[in-house]
């Protein structure tokens, strides 16, 4: 069974995704649970349109991009280790664009 989740990009991060802020996606079924650690490269390889280096650095998000899991700071949710649940809403907000 695939996992339906919602992704949102804002604060300028949407510019890397054709300016589309909201993406409803289905993560394909896999043996191990989907963690944010696996979600990030999936996003990069499947929906990111340009300049991957502005989204990811190493195996995590580029510093300066804030991540929220269901409206909670991912730093309180285990960051890369967080196990995605069906209907989760993951938000990426860039702090690096014009203030």
């Amino acid at each position: 069974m695939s996992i339906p989740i919602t992704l949102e990009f804002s604060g300028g991060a949407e510019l890397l995704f054709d300016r589309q802020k909201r993406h409803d996606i289905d993560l394909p079924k896999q043996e191990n649970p989907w963690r944010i650690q696996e979600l990030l490269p999936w996003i990069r390889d499947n929906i990111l349109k340009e300049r991957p280096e502005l989204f990811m650095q190493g195996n995590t998000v580029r510093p300066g991009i804030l991540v929220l899991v269901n409206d909670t700071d991912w730093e309180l949710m285990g960051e890369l280790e967080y196990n995605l649940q069906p209907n989760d809403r993951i938000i990426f907000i860039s702090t690096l664009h014009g203030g």
Partner: protein
Amino acid sequence: MPLACGLCDKQAILKRPKTGDALCKECFFLAFEEEVHQTITDASLFIKGETVAIGASGGKDSTVLAYVMKILNERYDYNLNLVLLSIDEGITGYRDDSLESVKRNEIQYGLPLKIVSYEELYGWTMDAIVKQIGLKNNCTFCGVFRRQALDRGALMLKVDKIVTGHNADDVAETVIMNVLRGDIGRLRRCTAITTGTDGALPRCKPFKYTYEKEIVMYAYFRKLDYFSTECIYSPNAYRGFARAYIKDLEKIRPSAIIDIIHSGESLSVKKEVKMPVQGVCVRCGYISSNTVCKACIMLEGLNKGLPRLGIGKTHKERLKMAEQIGEKEDSSINSQNLKSCVSDHFRPKSNSTSFEKNQLDSFWVQISQSGQSCCKSNTVGCSCQRSVVCKDVTAGIQSSVEQQKINSSVIDF
């Protein structure tokens, strides 16, 4: 799995970078606002009854600043008259949207808004400048013009102070950049919470100790309406690297940002170290460490169809400008090295401030430009060629002191 708030028993929504505390939404709002209030009162930023212009770009920092200033002004009776001030650089499609967001803020926050355009201030829109110079160097123009635009706009509004949304990350980044460039003068000034005292229009940063992460989270949870985009004219690569460096450090140790600001604040410069002298531009009266400020050099270049003037290395560009503008200014630019009746009559006393010295210096330039005449002091080999009248010299110095009152701070942001 989410933690409980460290202050109450609701669910925490964020980890504060500065303290590591996990807080719920309501406790975070309060902590955020109270810290800004603390910064404002600790530094006595405002006096009751003042008119304060909020430099509003439509972006996250200034949007949150406008909102928090409005709240605190009411909560703590600052008794300030707040206005939004926006600059329209004249970049098609860039400011259009962000100005719309400022206009929405005007209505949402009930604050009067004044938009001043580059065209009004300089006679050139950014689009027209880019047409002249191409895409490569426009950020130099953008930066130099933008720095002055807010002050000039604020003068038009006759406000007492300007507040800007510069946050802790911005200040730390500027400290790093000034270290990398070896710019001791700016390094010393850049951590000041208020700049441009000394008769100029004061500019303050109530968010000096506020982390960017918290500003963005605050905007998100308060559902504040802001606009974000990349400047369509390419970003400053050097600043970009400094920014990435700060963010990398923050990731490893969140206190790094505040630590860098504190390092900047506690730097002391030995007395023997020669500091750049701040004077005023003889053309526009804006504070400048050179006779003619960078904006004026660039405008001169644009108006003469020599757009590259003012972009290259400082010495080269000034020499070039001197060539272009003519002999008079050429000699004025080197005035420090020339013997003159002005410096003879008005030789700075040993206890003169650098400001006074500069007044003399820039006044001397005005005389040589205007072709006034003298020379009573009979200075041998005087560069004015005996053409300056001392009475005018005195009057001139007074008038340039008057002029200083409308000048504003330059800080490199």
